[in-house]
C-alpha cells in the first residue's frame, strides 16, 4: 500500500513525511508503553520511537480489550443489547444507554414522555460531571500528584454513584434507559437527594479549581504541550472537549437539540490554544455548565408517565430500515448505527466510538514532545478502553 503524495494541495490532504526529524546519530530507542502501564487508562499499547527524550514516531496498538461487542449486538435482541452498552464506556453508562435508546427510537419513530426526557437530561449531566471530574483527576495523577485531586474527584463521584444506585440498582452498569422512556420512576425522595448533591457541587468545583488551576507546576507542564490545530481536529473527526479545547464550536447538544436541550440555557466553553491546559480548563468549565443545566432541570421536572404507553418490551420487531442516533457523550460524539431487517435482532449494530477516533491525532500531537509529556497528552484525550476496543 503505497502512500500517495499530497493529491490536491488542500491543506488537510494526507501528508505522510514525519513532522519531526531525529537529530544526532545512532539508532532510535523503541519503547513499548503498555499494555501493562499505570497511566494508559486501561490495556493500551503505544510503540514509541525515541531520539533521546523526544518522540520521533508513535504508533498506537489497539485490541487488548476487544470483546466483540458489535457481533454480540447482532445476536441479541434490541432490549438484550442495553446492558451491553453500559459496558462500552464504563464510566458513563447512563449516556451510553441514552445514545442507544435514541438510535432505536429514531429507528421506530418512538415518542418519549416529557418526564422521561427531563430525567434523562439530569442523569446525563450528572454523568458528565463525574466523568470530567475523574478525567481531570486521572490527568493530574499522571502528572505526579499521586492521587490527591483524584480522590477529591472520586469523593464527589461517590455521591453521584450513590444516586445512581438508589435509582437504578447499580452504581456503574445501570441498564436504565428503555426505548420510549426510563425503566424506573424516580421517587420525590430521590429528586430531593439529587438536589442536595447538586447544591454541593459548585463548592466542590471551586475547591478543585483552587487546588489546581493556578498551580505553577500544572501550568508549566501543560501549557504549550500537545497542541492540536483546529483544522486538523475537524478533519480528523475529533469531537468533545478535545475539539472544543482547540477552539471549534461544535457541541451536539447545541447542533442536534436531541432530547429537550433546547429548553436549557448553557454556554459552550472553547479553548484558544488547543494544548493540554486548554482541554483541562474546558472540562472544568463544562462541569460548571452542567451544574447549571442540572439546577434548571431539577426545578422543572414535570409529573407524568416515565415510559411511553405504546412502547413494547417483549416482541420488539422494528420494521426494516436504518437509523443513526448520536449524543454528546462526555468523551465526544457517541453514535449508534442500526440496520434492521424486521427480525428481533439488529442486522448491523455499530458503535461510533469517540475515544478511538479521538486517538487518530495522538501521533500528531506527540511528535517532538518529551516522552514524559506523552502520558499527559494521552491523558488529556480522556479515553476509556472499553469504548476504543468495544
Amino acid at each position, binding site marked *: 500500500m503505497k502512500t500517495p503524495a499530497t493529491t490536491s494541495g488542500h491543506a488537510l490532504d494526507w501528508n505522510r513525511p514525519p513532522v519531526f526529524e531525529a537529530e544526532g546519530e545512532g539508532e532510535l530507542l523503541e519503547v513499548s508503553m503498555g499494555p501493562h502501564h499505570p497511566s494508559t487508562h486501561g490495556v493500551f499499547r503505544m510503540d514509541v520511537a525515541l531520539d533521546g527524550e523526544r518522540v520521533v514516531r508513535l504508533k498506537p496498538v489497539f485490541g487488548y480489550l476487544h470483546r466483540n461487542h458489535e457481533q454480540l449486538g447482532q445476536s441479541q435482541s434490541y432490549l438484550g443489547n442495553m446492558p451491553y452498552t453500559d459496558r462500552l464506556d464504563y464510566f458513563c453508562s447512563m449516556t451510553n444507554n441514552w445514545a442507544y435508546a435514541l438510535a432505536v427510537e429514531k429507528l421506530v419513530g418512538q415518542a418519549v414522555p416529557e418526564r422521561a426526557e427531563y430525567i434523562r437530561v439530569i442523569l446525563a449531566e450528572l454523568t458528565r460531571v463525574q466523568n470530567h471530574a475523574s478525567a481531570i483527576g486521572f490527568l493530574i495523577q499522571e502528572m505526579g500528584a499521586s492521587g490527591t485531586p483524584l480522590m477529591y474527584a472520586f469523593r464527589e463521584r461517590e455521591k453521584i454513584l450513590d444516586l445512581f444506585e438508589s*435509582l437504578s440498582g447499580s452504581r456503574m452498569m445501570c441498564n436504565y434507559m428503555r426505548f420510549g422512556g426510563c425503566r424506573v420512576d424516580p421517587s420525590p425522595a430521590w429528586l430531593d437527594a439529587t438536589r442536595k448533591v447538586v447544591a454541593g457541587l459548585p463548592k466542590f468545583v471551586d475547591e478543585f479549581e483552587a487546588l489546581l488551576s493556578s*498551580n505553577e507546576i500544572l501550568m508549566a507542564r501543560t501549557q504549550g504541550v500537545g497542541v492540536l490545530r483546529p483544522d486538523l481536529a475537524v478533519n480528523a473527526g475529533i469531537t468533545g472537549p478535545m475539539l472544543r479545547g482547540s477552539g471549534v464550536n461544535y457541541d451536539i447538544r447545541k447542533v442536534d437539540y436531541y432530547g429537550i436541550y433546547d429548553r436549557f440555557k448553557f454556554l459552550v466553553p472553547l479553548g484558544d490554544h488547543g494544548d493540554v491546559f486548554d482541554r483541562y480548563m474546558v472540562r472544568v468549565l463544562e462541569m460548571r455548565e452542567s451544574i447549571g443545566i442540572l439546577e434548571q432541570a431539577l426545578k422543572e421536572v414535570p409529573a407524568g408517565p416515565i415510559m411511553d404507553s405504546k412502547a413494547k418490551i417483549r416482541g420488539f420487531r422494528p420494521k426494516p430500515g436504518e437509523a443513526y442516533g448520536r449524543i454528546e457523550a462526555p468523551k465526544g460524539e457517541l453514535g449508534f448505527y442500526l440496520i434492521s431487517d424486521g427480525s428481533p435482532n439488529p442486522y448491523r449494530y455499530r458503535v461510533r466510538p469517540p475515544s478511538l477516533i479521538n486517538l487518530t491525532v495522538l501521533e500528531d500531537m506527540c511528535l517532538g514532545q518529551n516522552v514524559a509529556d506523552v502520558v499527559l497528552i494521552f491523558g488529556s484525550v480522556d479515553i476509556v478502553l472499553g469504548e476504543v476496543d468495544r
Partner: protein
Amino acid sequence: MLGEGILKGLAETAKNFAGSFVSKERLTTVEYPEERLPLPEASRNFPFLVYDGPDWEKGLRCVACQICEKECPPKCIYIEKSKDKKPDFVGKPQIYPAKFDIDISVCMSCQICVEVCPFEAIKMDNEFELSTVDRFGGLLLDRQQLAKSNEYYHKVHPTEATQVDARLAEEKAKAEAKAKADAAAKAKAAADAAAKAAAAPPKAPEGGTGTPTSAAAKPRDTEPQPAAPTKPSDPAKAASQSEPKGEPRKEGGD
C-alpha cells in the same frame, strides 16, 4: 510570587486533612469489613427465586415458562421443565422447574429476567460476598441455592416486596371472583337443565327406553349441557347397560 498557586493548593489539602478529623463530610471512608455501609434498597447483584410459605419446593412461584431464559442476554439461565404437575402454594397444579441453574460467573446483573417474569418469581438479591474456591461448580447456583423465601424478599427490598404482594393479592382476588362467577353460572345452567329434565320424563316411556332413560338422566343432571345433545348417546348407553343383562340370559339359554 512564584509558587503562590502551589501554596494555595496546599492550603486546600491541609483544610481537607484537618477537616477529616472534625467533620463527618470530610471523612468519606469506612473500615470495611468491620463497619459496613447499608446498601440502598434498589441495589441488585444476582437473582434469586422467591417461594411463598415454609416449604421451598412447594411454594416456589416459578412455573418454568422459560421467558427469563430466552430474554437473558448472556444466556446464563438453564431451565428444565418437570414432567408432572404439583400443587403450588394456592393449591393449583402447576408445572415446576425440575432444574433451574444460574451461572453467576456469567450473569451480568442486568435485571432483565426480573423485568420480563410474568409471575413475580425471580427477583434480584443484593448479596455480593459470594466468593468461592471452586471456579466452576461453586459459581453455578442450582434451584435450592437460588430459592429464598418471601420474608427474605421483604427484608431486602421492602417497598418493592409490598408492591408485589399487593399485585399478587389483587390477581388472586380477581381469580377467585372469576371462579365464583363461573361456579354460579354453572350452578345456574345445571338448575336450568334439571328444570328441563323434570319437564321431559312424562314423554320418555313412549320411547320404550324405561330404565336406561332414568339411568341416563343422572349423568345428564351434572353436565351443564342442554338435554338434546345427550339423546344420541342414550341408545349407546342403553346398549352398554343392557349387555351385561343380556349375556347371562344367553348363557342360561345355552
